[in-house]
């Protein structure tokens, strides 16, 4: 069981929570994830570690309130506890040897995971360009933070309500066409975004690392729920990943595997409203 020690609403649907988890904080590295379970009825949900503080013994996660479990998680406050919190799982991000120029690309809530990558690279003296993409102005997160850890920062919105209008791939294409040469690209965001970033970098043969988010249960290689096809081979994202060579990933398969419970999610939402109400009532009492 872990206790929430800090909470910050980054935008109306994205929340940052910091929890007291000394064992995980001691071991965590960029690219690794945790699995949480809220209560006895809860699902096991993986979330990438957004930040950690080895001295304070804390770990931070940033998540979008999309499904039942993340909605309930987002309803928790400082001092509340999360029943299960296990990690760090997966293997840390591995960059190509001697990479000096890296482009970090984040899409939506994926920026939460792209940010610590950019920060770690920047601290190592690597030249970092960041492209962050959002649907619109109201969901922009981590703008200042990205600015502070990048050599060049490009903020894109789909509707042009903030930054530049366009997709992250438009900017990436423009930069590479304009002569920017990267030793590696790191792309973290929705599956279609990662897929098209990989399509953009492929002709330039720039190694492109993606962080995958398949469904998972145990996170230790036991169930195979998170299997993805990479270079024609079946890999388990929980133990072999979650980072993979994006040029080898079968994104379409990942998308259909992630959609397998979509019909049930509607039902879940109904129940979730009930449980949120119950939680609310409990809070009032």
């Amino acid at each position, binding site marked *: 069981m872990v206790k929430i020690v800090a909470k910050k609403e980054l935008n109306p649907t994205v929340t940052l929570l910091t929890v007291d988890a000394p064992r995980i904080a001691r071991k965590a590295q960029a690219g690794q994830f945790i699995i949480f379970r809220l209560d006895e009825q809860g699902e096991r949900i993986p979330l990438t570690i957004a930040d950690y503080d080895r001295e304070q013994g804390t770990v931070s996660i940033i998540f979008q309130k999309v499904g039942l479990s993340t909605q309930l998680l987002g309803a928790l406050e400082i001092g509340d506890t999360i029943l*299960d919190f296990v*990690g760090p799982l997966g293997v840390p991000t591995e960059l190509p040897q001697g990479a000096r120029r890296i482009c970090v690309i984040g899409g939506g809530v994926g920026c939460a995971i792209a940010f610590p990558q950019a920060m770690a690279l920047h601290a190592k003296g690597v030249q970092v360009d960041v492209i962050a993409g959002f649907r619109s102005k109201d969901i922009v997160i981590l703008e200042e933070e990205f600015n502070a850890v990048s050599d060049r920062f490009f903020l894109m919105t789909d509707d042009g309500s903030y930054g530049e209008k366009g997709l992250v791939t438009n900017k990436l294409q423009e930069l590479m066409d304009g002569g920017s040469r990267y030793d590696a690209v790191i792309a973290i965001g929705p599956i279609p975004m990662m897929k098209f970033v990989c399509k953009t970098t492929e002709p330039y043969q720039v190694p492109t690392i993606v962080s995958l988010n398949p469904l998972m249960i145990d996170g230790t290689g036991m169930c195979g729920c998170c299997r993805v096809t990479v270079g024609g081979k079946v890999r388990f994202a929980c133990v072999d990943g979650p980072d993979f060579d994006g040029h080898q990933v079968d994104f379409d398969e990942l998308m259909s595997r992630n959609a397998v419970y979509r019909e049930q999610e509607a039902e879940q939402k109904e129940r979730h409203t009930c449980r949120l109400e119950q939680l609310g009532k409990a809070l009032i009492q």
Partner: protein
Amino acid sequence: MPNMSPTKVPVEEQAPLVRNKNFLEVSLSYMPEQAVEEARRCLNCKNKPCVAGCPVNIHIPEFISRVAAGDFKGAYEVISETNALPCVSGRVCPQENQCEERCVRGVKGEAVAIGRLERFVADWYLKNVSAMPVKPQSNGIKVAVVGSGPAGLTCASDLAKKGYQVTVFEAFHTAGGVLVYGIPEFRLPKAIVQSEVDKLKALGVELELDVVVGRTITIDELIEEGYKAVFVGSGAGLPMFMGIEGESLAGVYSANEYLTRVNLMKAYLDDHDTPLRQSKAVAVVGGGNVAMDAARCAKRMGAEKVYLLYRRGEEEMPARREEVNHAKEEEIDFRLLANPVRLLGNEKGQVCQIECVRMRLQAPDESGRRSPKEVPGSNFFLPVDTVIMALGTSPNPLIRATTPGLETNRKGCLVVNEETMATTREGIYAGGDAVTGAATVILAMGAGKKAAQAMDEYLSAN
């Protein structure tokens, strides 16, 4: 005068077409008078062949004679001297290949129902005697057990009884390993596993859940933290797949995943959040106990049609006969001598058909095994919306990859001295599926027991 009936006292079971819609236990326990009657069938042989067939050497004739005398508490005490989990082994042990196979009564008629009697005694004790074991005097020596499955629980229990300060590390949020994620509620109620875990806690064993050894902490770090010996009972959790086309379509599960969703995450209870495919037609591939469990769970989850595909014949199935019979009674459709060659998906990337080929068994080879061979041109299709691969598992590489000096064999199983269960690293012992590859609960318990003995000797000498 013993009861000379050639057959076991029958045990009540839920009717097949009732039980295949619920998760309540299939077989019920004996009533006390039935247990006494069955116990009276034991001849109390002097050479006790049954005991030699038991991986944890339960003093079988002794406990049975106490049952015959109506001393159920005494019977429990005899069993628990050597068996840390009687409620479990009484239910899931393949007695027909172990103690009961060697029973003299089996020569003419049926063996004594040792398994049913063990279960009766354990259940009776659980219901009628609330006393928890008393925590022994601590010797202050810290020992770590990795994994809380049958091997780990047994090892922890034996060491705790000797006074060691035992901490069990479990990756999942619930203790029990395969007993909670794998074996379904209708064969092994989870409340019973919990009661065994509670007994362990009463002995002073500490449980640390949500700790993945190899990630959260390594074995070497445990040793640095002052654990003087470590037992690795991390199981064989890695599921195998066939490597055929379409195996990563949505709706294709490993049995581990399917069973974990149903059992551990309680997908069969409405108030739990973990989703499961609402399947109409399911194909389970495999012929072991896990395949039977998966098929029977799928039926209980509401599938109208559940096929069981196995590439050999019924004779060759590794599953227990009782499980095979139970599955058939519950209207699982056995398609034997059939092997999947391809899974086909619909436009959403979800599995919708399984293509199989018929097999025939060849003449026995030198080892006496009849290997199956495809019958060319015999392909056929079954419409399914869910496929569950129950093809076996291999040990998880996490611990061997993060513990220098731990040797493994070609299959990734930890190499141990079979007498002591000592690994190739001093002070580190191992047992259960992590050593043998997927095997039985009772063999894992036997290994945990043997290791505890050797660890005690090692720690006493150092």
